[in-house]
């Protein structure tokens, strides 16, 4: 067995772990936090203004037109949904693979998932011409006959997939948080804090019988979330793959989208963790360079997968001999939107190659910059898919161009405001590292006195 480095630095004990993590919630935040929150809320205000104007005056404020019926809203929807994959992946898939290094980042990654899916979920609603009627997409009994929805439409699949995903990942996140909320409750000196966290913790008592069921449910949720997370981006990719459009109508989309989602999700986790490590230095003990390096390795691997998908799309287009396909891919790379294609390739395939070098994998500023590039690249991937396929399809007469307006920028950048507002609030009011999961692996890789490794290992999923 290879001697591994400790998962948690700083010779923590159970008590100091509680102090560290619950302490973030218990202390009054510093100025940097409020500065960050103000910035995020400024962006959120832009989002509200932009989307409010669009709802009030019409979708025409954005750049969408004929033939490019989908623009920033859908691109950003897919972008955020993609981001929302890393959390469940870390908490569920890595859990099933017994990856102990997931423990300290799982909670924040899950929170990121929930907020990203919330942000994403707004876009399909707001991109419709009549968002106030978006509830018609739900198959609820009604007085129209009743009239149901079209279960053949990928958008209805989306409704089911995204809402199931949002529900399950929120529940997963919350159930995981319950014991930690109980910790905060029991530590609370302030009556109201005790009450609020008392309610949030559902009165969790931590008996062995409860832990028995709890662990089982946690594993079941992880097991259910794994196919779910794969299905969600597969179904989002069906939005495109089920259409007849050249450039959309491809069978490679589900795995390609899932790989891209993991790619972008991990990049976003790296981005967030790089920020939080600076904002809350206590995190440095829990989210160590080893963690970051692991994630960077995954980014590089999925980056290669995505690069493979880009290449195979071109190959298949050529190999199929369908002129429409051939044209659309030539147009992608060398047409009027060719620049976006090359931004995508550079950011997603070329730049992550730096992670072949240990230096870049373990250097926080570098990985921060690279993760930002990956985020940009992944936004442009969806841009390339959406815009370049739509703008020149079957009949040349209906070809056109798409030009963004300030409302497009408002919707895109504003959505970061919503996401970061939620995330920053989460950091301050909820246990941002899973104490009940970190404590069992506290001594992994440590040679100091307390207990032997074997004892604490493999507590989860023992059954």
């Amino acid at each position, binding site marked *: 067995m290879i001697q591994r480095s400790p998962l948690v630095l700083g010779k923590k004990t159970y008590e100091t772990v509680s102090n560290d993590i619950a302490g973030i919630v218990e202390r009054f935040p510093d100025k940097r936090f409020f500065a960050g929150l103000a910035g995020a809320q400024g962006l959120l205000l832009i989002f509200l203004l932009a989307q409010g104007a669009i709802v009030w005056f019409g979708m025409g404020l954005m750049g969408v037109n004929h033939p490019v019926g989908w623009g920033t809203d859908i691109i950003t929807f897919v972008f955020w949904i993609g981001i929302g994959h890393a959390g469940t992946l870390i908490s569920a898939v890595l859990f099933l693979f017994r990856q102990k290094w997931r423990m300290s980042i799982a909670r924040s990654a899950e929170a990121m998932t929930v907020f990203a899916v919330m942000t994403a979920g707004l876009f399909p609603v707001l991109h419709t011409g009549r968002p106030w009627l978006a509830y018609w997409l739900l198959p609820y009994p009604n007085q129209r006959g009743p009239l*149901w929805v079209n279960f053949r439409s990928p958008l209805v699949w989306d409704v089911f997939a995204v809402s199931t995903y949002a529900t399950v990942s929120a529940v997963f996140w919350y159930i995981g948080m319950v014991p930690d909320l109980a910790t905060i409750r029991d530590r609370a000196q302030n009556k109201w804090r005790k009450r609020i966290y008392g309610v949030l913790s559902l009165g969790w008592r931590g008996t062995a019988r409860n832990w028995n069921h709890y662990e089982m449910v946690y594993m*079941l949720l992880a097991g259910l979330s794994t196919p779910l997370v794969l299905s969600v981006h597969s179904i989002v990719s069906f939005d495109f793959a089920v259409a007849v459009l050249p450039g959309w109508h491809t069978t490679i989309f589900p795995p390609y989208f899932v790989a891209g989602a993991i790619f972008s999700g991990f990049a976003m986790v790296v981005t967030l963790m790089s920020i939080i490590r600076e904002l809350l230095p206590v995190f440095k003990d829990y989210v160590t360079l080893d963690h970051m390096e692991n994630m960077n390795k995954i980014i590089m691997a999925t980056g290669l997968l995505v690069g493979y998908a880009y290449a195979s799309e071109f190959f298949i287009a050529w190999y199929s001999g369908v002129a429409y396909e051939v044209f659309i891919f030539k147009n992608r790379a060398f047409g009027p939107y060719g620049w976006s294609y090359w931004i995508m390739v550079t950011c997603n395939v070329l730049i992550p190659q730096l992670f072949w070098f240990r230096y870049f994998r373990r250097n926080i500023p570098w990985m921060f910059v690279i993760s930002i590039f990956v985020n940009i690249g992944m936004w442009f991937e969806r841009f390339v898919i959406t815009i370049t396929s739509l703008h020149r399809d079957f009949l040349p007469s209906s070809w056109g161009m798409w030009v963004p307006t300030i409302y497009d920028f408002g919707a895109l950048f504003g959505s970061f405001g919503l996401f970061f507002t939620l995330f920053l609030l989460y950091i301050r009011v909820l246990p941002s590292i899973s104490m009940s999961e970190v404590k069992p692996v506290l001594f992994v890789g440590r040679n100091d006195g307390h207990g032997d490794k074997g004892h604490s290992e493999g507590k989860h999923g023992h059954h």
Partner: protein
Amino acid sequence: MDIIEKLIQKARPTSRNGVAGLWMDEHQMVEAAAKIRAAGFTQIEAISPFPLHGIDEAIGIPRSFIPWVTFTFGLAGFAFGTWFTWWASAVDWPLIVGGKPMWSLPAFVPIMFELTILFAALSSVGALIFVCGLPQVDPPVIDPALTSHKFALWVPEGSAGFNGPKLEQMFKELGAGEVKKAEF
């Protein structure tokens, strides 16, 4: 204020008196639990800030039944998804959509799948909440540190084979840092 207090008091779960022992080290506690059980104590509760390896065997907790709930409801979700998509599209109001058959089974698979997962996941969580008796309002706390860094064993008075003094004695012998009568 008082009203809230009163409401909380009313809604509190019923608790029993018993004897609790508190440990700082989880391994000692697990070993102690096995020994106490061997000594004939029943209805032992082990309280810990995180799940403990080996405690189930130590105090005789059987494997959780929740997977059966998950499976049943997952199946129900699948069945509901299959039936509902068929009924709504082909029976209740059949409409010609894209030249596809009224019952376009391949197109309904995503719905069926998502409903399977949704039903299974929510039922599992529902079962957890039900079986753990959650939510509980202001449950009794033996020691606030039990959700942080301490570990406790607690045996209720009146349980089969209960012997207060013997228990206290054993707790102390097995390394409990603190032994006390406690409501739980």
